[in-house]
């Protein structure tokens, strides 16, 4: 395990609200190796976006605050860097693709300005060089007629095209890592597939590592090398794509897999949602936070926070050697 590109160690993030301190991320640790796609999966509010934005230090502060841990990127702890040093990393070494291309592009600046500005800033390119690079990028991300399109404004682009612009912007400086925060959530299903295909193609071509944040396991299945499942600010299961999808070990992951709609399933198969609500992140957990929603909860689950079992695969007492054996009914492959 030499040379992780990114290493997140025990990250803790809090938000101060009127109701109290919300602990959004509670000791998250993971690594990303060069050229690898790591998916962060979980329902809304589980802390996956906050984790990703913490890497770039995009958490609005106040109310947000990174209260603990280390984020080591390329051998340097990003949390020790000042604002000016972070500016040299953002958009240059780490690119970011956001969820909603409709609102994440500035409506009053031309596409050319928005695509070329970080090239000029980080790479010191002249206006002409940056424009040439932008044309090249638009070819890469599959936007036809780049010369014309660059002169236009965001409102003249469709949602899918805007997301391509966002991807072009993120790729501009050839970053080592791209953080894609639900890149397809706001798009039509057909466009989603195109964008995912594009991301995959570009990743293979540039050997860029990707952190893919999503709540859609369908998105993950086609893309990721490894999966991290998050719940209530913690990672509850982690493993390679095959491990997590084929032999999931946490009941929460089982629940997620059962709630994926499938085209090829016979009509008698019902979608099984995960009942209940995610827990209130204002509170501290001395027990398993998934316990109240878990079909397999045992006495120990309400008493003690489970550690990672099976070489760090899942945080669930069911994996304890003395726990009763519960088999996940493999309806989903």
């Amino acid at each position, binding site marked *: 395990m030499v040379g992780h590109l990114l290493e997140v160690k025990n990250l803790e993030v809090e938000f101060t609200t009127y109701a109290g301190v919300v602990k959004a991320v509670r000791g998250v640790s993971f690594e990303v190796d060069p050229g690898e796609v790591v998916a962060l999966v979980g329902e809304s509010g589980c802390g996956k976006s906050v984790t990703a934005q913490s890497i770039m230090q*995009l958490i609005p502060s106040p109310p947000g605050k990174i209260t603990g841990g280390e984020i080591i990127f390329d051998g340097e702890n990003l949390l020790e860097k000042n604002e000016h040093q972070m500016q040299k990393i953002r958009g240059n070494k780490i690119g970011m693709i956001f969820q909603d291309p409709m609102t994440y592009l500035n*409506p009053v600046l031309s596409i050319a300005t928005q695509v070329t*500005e970080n090239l000029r800033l980080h790479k010191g390119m002249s206006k002409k060089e940056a424009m040439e690079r932008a044309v090249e990028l638009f070819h890469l991300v599959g936007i036809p007629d780049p010369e014309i399109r660059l002169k236009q*404004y965001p409102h003249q682009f469709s949602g899918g095209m805007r997301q391509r612009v966002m991807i072009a912007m993120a790729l501009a400086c050839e970053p080592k890592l791209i953080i894609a925060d639900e890149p397809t959530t706001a798009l039509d299903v057909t466009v989603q597939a195109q964008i995912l295909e594009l991301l995959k193609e570009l990743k293979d071509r540039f050997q860029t590592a990707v952190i893919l944040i999503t709540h859609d396991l369908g998105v993950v299945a086609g893309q990721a090398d490894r999966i991290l499942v998050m719940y209530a600010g913690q990672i509850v299961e982690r493993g390679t794509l095959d491990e997590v999808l084929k032999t999931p070990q946490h009941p929460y992951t089982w629940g997620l897999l059962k709630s994926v709609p499938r085209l090829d399933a016979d009509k008698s198969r019902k979608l099984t949602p995960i009942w209940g609500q995610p827990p209130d992140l204002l509170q501290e957990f001395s027990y398993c936070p998934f316990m109240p929603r878990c079909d397999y909860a045992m006495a120990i689950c309400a008493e003690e926070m489970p550690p990672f079992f099976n070489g760090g695969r899942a945080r669930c007492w069911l994996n304890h050697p003395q726990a009763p054996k519960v088999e996940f009914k493999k309806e989903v492959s």
Partner: protein
Amino acid sequence: MFNYIVRRLLYSLAALLVVVTVTFLFMHIIPGGPFQREKALPEAIRKNIEARYKLDQPLHIQYIDYLSHLIRGDLGPSYKYRGMTVNDIIRERFPVSVELGTVAILLALFLGIPSGILAALHQSKFPDYLVMFFSTIGIAMPSFVIGTLLMYFLSYKWGLLPSATWGSPQHVIMPAIALAGLPTAYIARLTRSSMLEVLSQDYMKTAIAKGLPRRRILWVHGIKNAIIPVVTYLGPLVAGILTGSFVVENIFAVPGLGKHYVTSIYNRDYTVILGVTIFYCVLLIFMNLLVDLVYPLIDPRIKLAERKEQV
């Protein structure tokens, strides 16, 4: 674009006709006339004068007569200032109001926009409270109070600036500050609220994620979005301030158009009232048109052809 401007000007003409007609009628509804004095003029002389200015004609004849002159750009003679036409008066007085108004508007912009941004950047902290405190005062305190206070301290107490009249650059300072008070406060508040909205927009996060320096994020990505409400306000503001403020010009004895406008109403100087009203109207229409033409330059989503025409 060209069609749009032509269409707008045609609409403006209609609006102008309404203004002329209403002002004309109201003016004649007010009791009294331009040649009524406390000491009544001899009947024969009064009749003579009225005949000379065609005031003895029926109202509709006077109206048509006025319009026919107006079309030729002739606003008629002043009844009060013998030998001067309304055109002369505007030509003479307007530059003074323009000078004062330009200084006041520049003051309002250069003070209002930065302090609005400052307040937005430090929301609910000291700079915000400071800016909001002064802008509340600026909105609440009438210009004559500001003017009088300035005059009391700067001229009477400390003798730094001339208290009144016109002529040197020093004369401009106090009336300009008094005139700029309200617009400065208003622009600061407008800028603050629109900047706050812009700061929370997603595209600002994109700008940060691209590693842009704070300066560029604010002045390129932020301000262009935040400035639109200020531009909207600027149209009528410029027209209003350029035609002069009666109150401020009166306090500081500035020989501007605003002072003259109100005096003309006391005097029932019909042609001056009408002439200056029309002038103000044209200026307002022109400024609003200018603002509408500027919008698409700031926000490319605004297309002139699709806009509903408003005058």
